[in-house]
């Protein structure tokens, strides 16, 4: 079926070449990192995880959110999602690939990455995260590819795909729960030491992922003439609205515990973001931008007339996606390290090579998604003709 990705319009090829250039710049910068070490990034002894792990965390959520399309269609027989479940599955494949890339390029010794398999360590949450992520990747490649192949031949998918689909539903919850457990079980990091972390992760994932689905549906309509159907988009928007409400609610729960208990080890991190701490606060504008976007988009998504406005909806979804990208993709990780265990404040800002590498990985994800969607669109066009 890959041959379908090799013929396309001029616009398609221009986009592919653009992505290849972005990826190429990322690869060149990664070679520099390989040569020099992680010192090329903005990370430090105190802030020892940064943009890479943040993006990894965020994209695990995006990947998990495919379940929000799969579950209504397969468990509740909600036929309206029939055309778009496969879009969700391919988002999952691309996002998990990006996650694994981010984890590997965050390693100080990537040449030893396979030590994770040579010396499996069941007491490490990172080991389990690697297990559930690769399992989820395998499940979604298998399901997506088989279903698409059957669509091409005009045959119904074989029965065993249904079994895999049922497995993939709890599995999606597991990848994000385990990723939250990476952070939520560390004794000395007050910012992360909260039982609401896993629910918060799931809430924000089920908002950001479906928001991306809506944006992609709008995009596919313009560039490929694919119509997901307004009914389907309206339903996905409803999911985004509920998930955003849950996310805001969970965040407020965290705020209550932190600020009513007044325990400094928990409060200091939030103080750093909200008003700065001991004269440091370079990430304050990002935090407020994320909060303002989250509040505006949540309110407008809850009000039916604004949510169901086809001209406004993509802007709301973009706000959701970017707000959560800032909150989870940068601040949630960096915030755990500021202040440090010795209550020193070391600020963090990504360097240019670090940004170029990050964009390179996004390029890889976008290219994978482009190819998958191109194949899907071509097959559907042929089936119609």
């Amino acid at each position: 079926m890959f041959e379908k990705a090799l013929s396309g319009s001029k616009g398609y090829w221009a986009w592919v070449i653009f992505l290849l250039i972005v990826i190429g710049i990322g690869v060149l910068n990664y070679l520099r990192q390989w040569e020099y070490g992680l010192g090329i990034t903005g990370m430090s002894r105190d802030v020892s995880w940064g943009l890479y792990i943040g993006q990894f965390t965020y994209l695990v959520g995006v990947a998990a959110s495919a379940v929000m399309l799969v579950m209504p269609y397969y468990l509740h027989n909600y036929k309206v999602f029939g055309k778009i479940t496969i879009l969700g599955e391919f988002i999952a494949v691309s996002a998990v690939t990006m996650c694994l890339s981010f984890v590997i390029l965050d390693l100080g010794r990537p040449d030893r990455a396979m030590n994770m398999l040579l010396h499996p360590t069941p007491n490490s949450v990172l080991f389990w995260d690697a297990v559930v992520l690769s399992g989820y990747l395998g499940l979604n490649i298998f399901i997506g590819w088989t279903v698409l192949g059957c669509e091409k031949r005009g045959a119904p998918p074989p029965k065993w795909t249904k079994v895999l689909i049922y497995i993939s539903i709890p599995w999606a919850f597991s990848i994000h729960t385990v990723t939250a457990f990476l952070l939520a079980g560390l004794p000395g990091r007050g910012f992360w030491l909260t039982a609401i972390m896993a629910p918060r992760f799931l809430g924000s994932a089920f908002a950001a992922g479906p928001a991306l689905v809506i944006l992609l549906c709008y995009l596919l309509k313009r560039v490929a003439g694919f119509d997901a159907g307004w009914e389907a988009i309206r339903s996905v928007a409803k999911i985004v609205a509920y998930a955003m409400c849950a996310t805001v609610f969970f965040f407020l729960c965290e705020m209550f515990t932190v600020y009513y208990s007044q325990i400094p080890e928990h409060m200091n991190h939030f103080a750093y973001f909200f008003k700065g701490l001991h004269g440091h606060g370079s990430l304050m504008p990002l935090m407020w931008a994320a909060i303002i976007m989250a509040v505006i988009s949540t309110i407008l998504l809850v009000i039916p007339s604004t949510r169901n406005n086809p001209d406004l909806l993509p802007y709301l979804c973009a706000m959701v996606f970017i707000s959560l990208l800032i909150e989870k993709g940068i601040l949630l990780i960096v915030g755990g390290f500021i202040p440090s265990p010795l209550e020193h404040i070391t600020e963090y800002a990504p360097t240019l090579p670090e940004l170029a590498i990050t964009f390179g990985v996004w390029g890889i994800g976008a290219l994978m998604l482009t190819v998958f969607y191109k194949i899907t669109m071509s097959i559907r066009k042929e089936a119609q003709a």
Partner: protein
Amino acid sequence: MGNSRRDFLKIAGLSALGLGIKPTADAFAQGAAPKVSVNPKAIRGKRWAMVINVQKFKEKGPELQKACMEACHSIHNVPHFDNPKQEVKWIWTAEFGHSFPDQERPYLHEFEEDGLKGVPVLVLCNHCENPACVRVCPVKATFQRPDGIVMMDYHRCIGCRYCMAACPYGARSLNWRDPRSLDKDGKPFIKTLNREFPTRTRGVVEKCNFCAERLAVGKMPACVEVCKDNEIVFGDLEDPKSEVRKLLREHFVIRRKPQLGTNPQVYYIV
């Protein structure tokens, strides 16, 4: 043709599965320990612990602390990176309030300036009895010996830095660049090379090892040896006759963040 490709994939899949199962099974199985001969001079203990006498250090001024740090860092080939955000340190000093954030109180700075004469506190890896770093390491590159020392395997570490996130004491450093290379002025990051101890590569984590390599040949830890007047005492906590047990019997001591349940094994007489 189609069949043969299918068969090949089946066999390849089974082989990959087999290769994957072996190490997983090993991880859960108990292997026989290899035999090693032990140096007869080696100092052995059941649970190593350290007592740091902050009052004695106050009398000596910051010079003795510098000597401790210098001895440790030169013996262990600790690199001196020029970027302070990326420094590697095994033992260092921090103000009392930063070493013990839970002791924060009004006018603490007056105690730091007068009571401690502005002399900070030595901090290092606490060799916790219940170490969070060991719990999170995905490759067992950091592990705990039966005598309590938390060790690093520099040859296995993948540099994921999960241990740095897990350590509540900031005791761990990553080699953000190649410690064997040269700085801007062409000088090596490792000032004087000690050929008795391994240097590290870029991308691995390191920290204090309670001088396990010195105990193995009958020597006390480097920082302890520098302190001629028992400013730092090292010994076996399980031995009732040991010097550390005596000090803990006679003095009120504090530890860094004991409320976290890590059971740190570095005690401070303040």
